[in-house]
């Protein structure tokens, strides 16, 4: 990380608040590509016998929220059952307040469960899954799932681990469900655990980093004989400035293998880190190519959505992971972005 978190002012600096608390973050000079903790060796807690549920995160369009640390969150089964009861009661109260009759879409039964396989390193806490279902219609039929929410943290940075045992740091909140139920669940979590949950927006610079880094995970042409790799082309959607009439977005599609070749030219093969210069050359290469053919300067537009065979992300905070093998890498990057975007709160004891 470029700037370390220091709550004390070192002598010789300005007396007004340092820039670290401004909304502008500094792009790091380099970023790790893969996870530090090797995925094949599960953590030494007693989850070795339990199945990893990480595959459930793939192929769903999640809306990303960032959450401040939770106060007094208990992982014991009585704790989780208690939260489930409270959530169900909260949802029922909210639905009874509804004047407009929403046709069965408002779930009433909430459950909190631990989701195995998501948390990675020693500093991560276990991920929690929140499911909201509609009330059971008949005796035997289970209610329809209205919302799935996953609170997790994947390979969080060492300096952001909270020493105070009363707080649990689960910064990433992925939600799939309709707007009303999402709102109720978020209000419940904010009230119950004294935290603040805000929608995450990915700035265009970060999207450029993502597409530049994740192109490296596309399997090479020789390896892609296996049927599992989907040959999804790289897609970059740029938003055109408002002054230009008649054109709102420009979508650029690149074949996956060509992008991978360019990535290999740009990236230093032995290094686990992806530097700023490599990212700039990759993006610059794409923009130059586009300019050569269409005489349109993509540098003047801003990225809105990126899509590759690993994941698709857009600036409004929607994330869809497409690859089974790189889920941890994607979540790790999202965790890092979310933690960077929040001011350092109670991280240091």
């Amino acid at each position: 990380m470029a700037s370390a978190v220091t709550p004390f002012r070192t002598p010789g600096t300005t007396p007004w608040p340092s820039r670290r608390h401004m909304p502008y973050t500094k792009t790091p000079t380099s970023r790790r590509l893969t996870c530090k903790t090797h995925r094949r060796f599960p953590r030494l807690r007693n989850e070795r016998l339990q199945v990893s549920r990480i595959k459930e995160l793939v192929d769903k369009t999640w809306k990303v929220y960032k959450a401040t640390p939770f106060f007094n969150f208990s992982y014991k089964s009585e704790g989780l059952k208690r939260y489930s009861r409270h959530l169900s009661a909260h949802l029922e109260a909210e639905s009874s307040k509804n004047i407009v009759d929403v046709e069965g879409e408002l779930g009433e039964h909430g459950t909190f469960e631990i989701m195995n396989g998501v948390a990675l390193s020693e500093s991560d806490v276990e991920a929690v899954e929140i499911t909201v279902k509609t009330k059971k219609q008949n005796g035997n039929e289970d209610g329809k799932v209205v919302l799935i929410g996953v609170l997790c943290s994947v390979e969080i940075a060492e300096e952001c681990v909270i020493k105070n045992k009363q707080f649990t740091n689960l910064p990433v909140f992925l939600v799939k469900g309709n707007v009303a139920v999402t709102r109720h669940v978020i209000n419940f979590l904010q009230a119950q655990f004294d935290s603040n949950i805000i929608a995450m927006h990915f700035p265009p610079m970060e999207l450029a980093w993502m597409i530049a880094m994740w192109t490296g995970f596309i399997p090479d042409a020789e390896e892609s004989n296996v049927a599992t790799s989907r040959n999804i082309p790289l897609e970059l959607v740029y938003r055109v400035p408002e002054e230009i009439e008649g054109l709102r977005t420009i979508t650029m599609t690149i074949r996956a293998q060509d992008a991978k070749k360019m990535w290999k030219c740009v990236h230093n093969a032995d290094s686990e880190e992806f530097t700023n210069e490599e990212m700039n050359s990759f993006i610059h290469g794409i923009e130059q190519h586009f300019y050569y053919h269409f005489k349109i300067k993509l540098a003047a537009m801003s990225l809105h959505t990126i899509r590759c065979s690993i994941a698709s992300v857009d600036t409004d905070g929607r994330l869809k992971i497409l690859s089974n093998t790189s889920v941890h890498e994607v979540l790790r990057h999202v965790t890092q972005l979310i933690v960077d975007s929040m001011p350092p709160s109670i991280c240091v004891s």
Partner: protein
Amino acid sequence: MSKLLSTFNKVSAPNTATVLLVGAEGTSKHKLAEAMLNIDTDFNLNMLTASSLPLPKDESDSRPPVNFVVFVIDLSNVLSMTIVESSVKYLDVDYFLGRCCFVVMKAEDPDNQNVEMMAVTGLSDVYQSPMLCGDVKTIRNCQCLARKLLSMVEIAGGFKFGVTPLLIDATRNTFNFEEEL
């Protein structure tokens, strides 16, 4: 003939100040120029705009000497930053003693930011020139930014008795941005 823009190689018309706005297309230079012209001043104001430096060769020598240069950067447009970075090199060193300024547009929306704020502040530190943030979306903000720029232009044109741009530059409150470019 040097490509550098210089302020002291010609004599300007009496009671006139000339301002040059440099910035990529789409950075609302003309709106800003109109706002500055709409404000009442005691002196004549000439506004020139350019999308990059160096300026094309002045055949008829009718171009007035420029008293003040404003570089406009749009944080959602990477091209504007690269153009400003390359244009600054074509300015004669006289301009960096109080006759130059960086204006940053669209700074209040970090979600749509394409240019790093640290890069802009680094630029301002390296060239030791002030940096203003503003926008031209509402008339009030546009006029506010225009008035700030005009106060600097007035000094650069020598219309304030006893105050020179060098005095302002030497007594300017620098922010000491710590990080290097």
